[in-house]
């Protein structure tokens, strides 16, 4: 089930070697441009009556030359790397005989992959036919040309850019401003990666989900009560079509999250109240970091703890009082997830309780209320919106949590709200659908992306609402 894909890693080693040659060449050309640019600006400055006649320091002219040499060539290099394989694929496939090209795109892809693996020496000669062997030869030739051309073009562009910049050096050239402008753009690009990541997530998940909904009607997915994503291997098989009803997964996810909240909210909230209102400074400074260790424990550790310690314990406990408890009960997974979320709830409520102005506390205490009365009747009502926001954030955490449920919750989707039974969750299904050898286009894998889409938007919505509530609450007391 967990076998690695053998294909093409030798090839990647090769291509990494080649890419690093190109890359090192590029670096060398940048360095040369830097020194030439700096040197030339010095010469020009000295001949114009001293370095002070230059607008910028000589090194800025050097930087400028290096950037001109490096940036365009780097773009070309990256573009070439991305375009190389698809481009060669097109040429090789167009050279194949007509009967081969008449195959479906999935089959043609497999056929082509064999050609590539053979060309890279990963597949035995006996595995491929003559046509594929010929294609492999043309593939290797094309790859050779492409690599040669890449080195040549990238080098030429770098030389050209560097030379242009060096020739432009004049005392009145504002090299420093020029370099700094380019740098600002680089900084901007770095921060724009966050936007691109979101865009990438939305697009990748959305595209695959749309392909899924072309096979399975969206209403069946959203309102179907049965989830069993077994697709037929043969068309005439009994029970050929799997059913992709999302409701049992949602109920299972919410059930486990609810159990988690039953643990995390009381413990987290009460600890936060105790630590911020009652505990001495010293006790607090020791206790808080210790409890925050719980937040740093990797989720896979919680999963192990849930599956091997908590779940058997709960089952034995249930059996001793005459209850039948599934060995992968929602209770065990929820309980451990609750433990994981305690520090999260604690630090959020801590922030929020501390944001309530002291004047309110003092007024209440001054009227003769006890501390607990002040907390329950003054602080908590005032902090309620913030705490609700914090709890929403914690719920979104619980819904998106993966490892604990993968290891401790069930696999089969059962529509129940009994926490002693095994239920499955959205994240568990994503993992089981995608781990292992799958064809990428089957409805099973596409279903995982549809689930991913739902997960992304549910957590996004929860976060937006929660952040809005918390911000409104903060503004109220500022």
């Amino acid at each position, binding site marked *: 089930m967990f076998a690695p894909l053998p294909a093409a890693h030798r090839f990647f080693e090769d291509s990494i070697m080649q890419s690093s040659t190109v890359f090192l060449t590029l670096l060398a050309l940048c360095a040369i441009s830097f020194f030439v640019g700096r040197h030339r600006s010095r010469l020009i400055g000295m001949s114009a009556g001293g370095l002070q006649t230059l607008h910028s320091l000589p090194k800025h002219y050097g930087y400028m030359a290096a950037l001109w040499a490096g940036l365009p060539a780097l773009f070309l290099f990256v573009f070439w790397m991305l375009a190389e394989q698809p481009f060669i694929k097109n040429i090789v496939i167009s050279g194949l005989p007509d009967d081969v090209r008449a195959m479906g795109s999935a089959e043609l892809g497999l056929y082509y992959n064999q050609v590539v693996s053979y060309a890279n020496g990963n597949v035995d000669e006996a595995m491929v036919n003559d046509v594929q062997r010929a294609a492999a030869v043309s593939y290797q030739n094309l790859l050779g040309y492409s690599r040669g051309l890449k080195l040549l073009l990238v080098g030429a562009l770098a030389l050209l850019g560097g030379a242009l910049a060096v020739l432009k050096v004049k005392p009145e050239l504002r090299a420093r401003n020029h370099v700094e402008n380019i740098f600002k753009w680089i900084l901007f690009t770095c921060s724009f990666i*966050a936007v691109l990541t979101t865009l990438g997530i939305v697009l990748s998940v959305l595209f695959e989900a749309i392909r899924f909904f072309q096979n399975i009607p969206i209403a069946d997915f959203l309102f179907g009560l049965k989830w069993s994503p077994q697709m037929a291997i043969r068309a005439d098989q009994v029970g050929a079509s799997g059913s992709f009803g999302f409701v049992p997964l949602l109920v299972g996810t919410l059930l486990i999250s609810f159990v988690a909240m039953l643990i995390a909210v009381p413990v987290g909230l009460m600890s936060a109240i*105790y630590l911020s209102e009652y505990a001495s400074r010293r006790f607090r400074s020791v206790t808080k970091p210790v409890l925050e260790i719980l937040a740093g424990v990797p989720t896979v550790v919680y999963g192990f703890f849930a599956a091997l310690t908590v779940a058997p314990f709960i089952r034995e406990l249930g059996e001793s009082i005459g209850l039948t408890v599934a060995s992968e009960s929602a209770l065990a997974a929820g309980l451990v997830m609750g433990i994981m979320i*305690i520090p999260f709830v604690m630090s959020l409520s801590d922030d929020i309780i501390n944001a309530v102005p002291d004047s309110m506390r003092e007024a209440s205490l001054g009227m003769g209320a006890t501390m607990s009365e002040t907390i329950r009747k003054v602080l908590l009502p005032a902090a309620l919106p913030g705490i609700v926001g914090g709890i929403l954030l914690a719920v979104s955490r619980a819904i998106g949590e993966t490892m604990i449920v993968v290891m401790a919750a069930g696999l089969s989707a059962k529509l129940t709200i009994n926490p002693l039974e095994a239920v499955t969750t959205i994240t568990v299904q994503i993992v089981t659908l995608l781990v292992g050898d799958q064809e990428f286009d089957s409805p099973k894998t596409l279903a995982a992306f549809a689930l991913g889409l739902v997960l992304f938007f549910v957590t996004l919505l929860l976060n937006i609402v929660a952040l809005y509530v918390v911000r409104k609450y903060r503004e109220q007391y500022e």
Partner: protein
Amino acid sequence: MSKETFRNTELIQASLKKRYAREKRFQLYGQLAVLAGFAFLFILLFDIVSKGTPAFTQKYLLVDVHFSADKLGVAPGAGEEELSRANYSGVIKASLREMFPDVSSRSDKRRLYRMVSIGAEYDLRDQVLSDPGLIGQRKDVWLLAHSEAASYLKGQVSRESPEAERRVKDVQMDWLDQLRDDGRTRSAFNTLFFLEGDSREPELAGIRAALQGSFFTLLVTFLLAFPVGVFAAVYLEEFAPRNRITDLIEININNLAAVPSIVFGLLGLAVFINFFELPRSAPLVGGIVLSLMTLPTIIITSRAAIQAVSPSIREAALGVGASKLQTVFHHVLPVAMPGILTGSIIGMAQALGESAPLLMIGMVAFIMDSPASVTDPATVLPVQIFLWADSPERGFTEKTSAAIMVLMGFLILMNALAIYLRKRFETK
């Protein structure tokens, strides 16, 4: 009037007891909550440490091995190649039979052979290869015990439990008792655990391949996330104009920080593996995915660190004619660096413990060899833990806990480093 006041005081006094009791109770709830948190943490750590500690020792059995050329199936004066292909398992089996001559039934013989690990064959092979003179000799050799036999010697299985429910049978226990009474058992520190890759046999499985995979993955993550994160933070704090695009970027960063990690795995699968056709199971893709995931953490903490730099430093630099960029890179960043490093280390610690997105991009393969580069198939420590935890062999439970202890050790180390940096930063 005065009577009324008196009545009120009386009422208040009567209710006071109740109110104080409620106050006490409330305080108790708070203490209980803190205590519950402590108890959970303690149970979790105790469970893992008590399960994992035995995995750091390994049991050996002293077997009187007869290196007969006959059993090995080699001719005298055989070359290295022939020696390395010789039948060492036959030698071990024959030697075990000689030590326990009473064993006759076929199933008992199988049980007898099952006490020694498969790995022992390779030990013998290495010994013979280094000293071919051993052939034909008799020698006492410490052989690695099978994980089941070891579990009895470590006292994890007791005779009282029903025989059908345990892997170690009564006869095996008798033999092991006999060996122990003869002083023919020994325990030693489990070096294999740190020097070997994954294996199907619990006693031979180690975390070296996973550690190396984690190292390569984190290396890629750091190389990508650190510069990009710091540059992004610099842009947002020092250069970004107040406009729509900046708002868009900030909203995106905040949202990405809360996106479930598994969604990043889906991104990696769809974009880097299916679209860009990067290799599956490779630390390269794992590192890219984790860097996208840790980027928000690094950006947010770096921004806080840059914000905390006193404006006087900026003004002084600008005042003597430095440009905005020079001010930032020569003066602001060096001052903010400890804070930035603290945030980055915490982000790296998160990445080290992360496993869900890596499952999506195929880093769940069974890996025996350590990866040599970022494009080799690899697995990481948390995923190795996941794989072992899933494994039906009982011997893997202690391995899992031990691997968790190693992982937690690294995490504690990284967090301690972050706290140390923060402390130094604060005192400045």
